[in-house]
């Protein structure tokens, strides 16, 4: 070395610090530029690192899985919370999706119906007692009144028997007090559809001379003035012709599944509206 022996360490130290500072300042000025040495080191280190990783892969697996479990409990707790939150979220989306499907069906029904309709949500059901009714979240303030027909996408639900400003009670088709003028679609035989609670409904006053088969569709006749003509009521599930009496005993299965009702549509008819005639003209 040409440096004086006495000051050699000091000079070397100063040189190293100065070179380090030069490299640092150069790197700060041009951070995006990868220097030759840097690139060389990165290229050399990569195979070395992969060699070490491959060599210690199994050992690392054992270490991570069985020994180094720091933070695992916290992570587990966090993941459980995330999981619970995600389940809630998925449930909300699923509910929204199913509601959307139901509302689409109602919308399609609304488009099919020629009358003004109001959609309502079922907010309570009382099907265990003698009177089979449901509560809906619309009332007189929405234009509802007594005896208006209530339908779902599958068919007739019933009619309004009680109403307040924001809530109405609907007497279901299957209630024993419910009587609707009906006819069999195929044979055009007329009768009265009466509720039979858990048994569904029965079609009364159909003469024995009329031909009625299992599977025939029953629709509203529109004669009483309460229900528009042609609304789906149910399907014939059993026909009995007894020796005594003038009429057949016909059991009807309603189209609507009353236990799963969530949204319904109320048909708002004018008081002067002649339903049967109106429908016949349509």
């Amino acid at each position, binding site marked *: 070395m040409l440096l004086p022996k006495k000051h050699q*360490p000091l000079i*070397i130290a100063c040189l190293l610090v100065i070179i*380090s500072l030069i490299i*640092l300042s150069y790197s700060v000025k041009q951070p995006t530029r990868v220097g030759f040495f840097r690139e060389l*080191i*990165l290229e*050399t*280190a990569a195979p070395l*690192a992969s060699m070490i990783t491959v060599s210690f892969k199994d050992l690392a697996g054992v270490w991570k899985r069985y020994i180094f479990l720091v933070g695992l409990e916290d992570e587990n707790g966090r993941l459980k919370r995330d999981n619970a939150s995600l389940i809630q979220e998925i449930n909300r989306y699923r509910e929204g999706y199913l509601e959307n499907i139901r509302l689409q069906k109602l919308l399609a029904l609304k488009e099919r119906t020629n009358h003004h309709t109001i959609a309502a949500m079922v907010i309570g059901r009382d099907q265990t007692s003698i009177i089979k009714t449901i509560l809906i979240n619309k009332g007189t303030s929405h234009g509802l009144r007594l005896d208006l027909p209530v339908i779902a996408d599958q068919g007739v639900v019933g009619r309004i028997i009680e109403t307040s400003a924001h809530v109405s009670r609907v007497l279901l088709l299957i209630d024993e007090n419910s009587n609707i003028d009906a006819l069999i679609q195929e044979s055009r035989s007329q009768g009265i559809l009466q509720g039979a609670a858990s048994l569904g409904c029965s079609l009364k006053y159909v003469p024995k001379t009329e031909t009625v088969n299992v599977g025939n569709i029953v629709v509203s006749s529109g004669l009483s003035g309460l229900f528009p003509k042609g609304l789906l009521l149910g399907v014939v599930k059993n026909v009995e012709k007894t020796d005594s009496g003038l009429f057949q005993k016909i059991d009807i299965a309603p189209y609507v599944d009353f236990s799963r009702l969530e949204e319904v549509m109320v048909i708002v008819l004018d008081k002067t509206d002649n339903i049967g005639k109106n429908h016949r003209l349509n």
Partner: protein
Amino acid sequence: MTYYISLPFFSLALIVSQMMIGDIIFSGKIAVELSLIVVIYAGFRFDVLRGGILSFILGFIHDCLTCSLSGLYTLIYVLIFLISKLASLRISPGKPFLIMSFTFVCALFEGMMIILFHPLLYGGGISTHAITSYLPQVLIVSTLSPILFMVFHWTEAALNGRESQPVKRT
């Protein structure tokens, strides 16, 4: 001469190994900075030229592999080497507690330098999480330092083929 030729390879192997150890054993949460202990050991054992170049190369490779900017660890390692060199005048490398304490101080100094330079280099403050995760790292390094000092001493002796002696204080 062999020493200077082998230095880059040794440094590279050391830095890569310590990165892999941190990654494999501590899942990358804690870095075991063996290179820092090597630098401190060099400060106690080597002369300024040999130790200085070792620290410089170790710092540079550390920069290349772990830091987005070159020069930061180079500067820190060179400074720590020089501080160790000065400390070696007072502290004997044979006293484990002193070595441990000195390594602790050096590791803290390194951390402070990084915190100090971080806004200048990256344009933003360092997160509190980074600071708190650095503390266990400091403790691990300082705890390991007396053992590694012994290991380095034996290695040095084995390489030289004789019991290595501390360099003369200049």
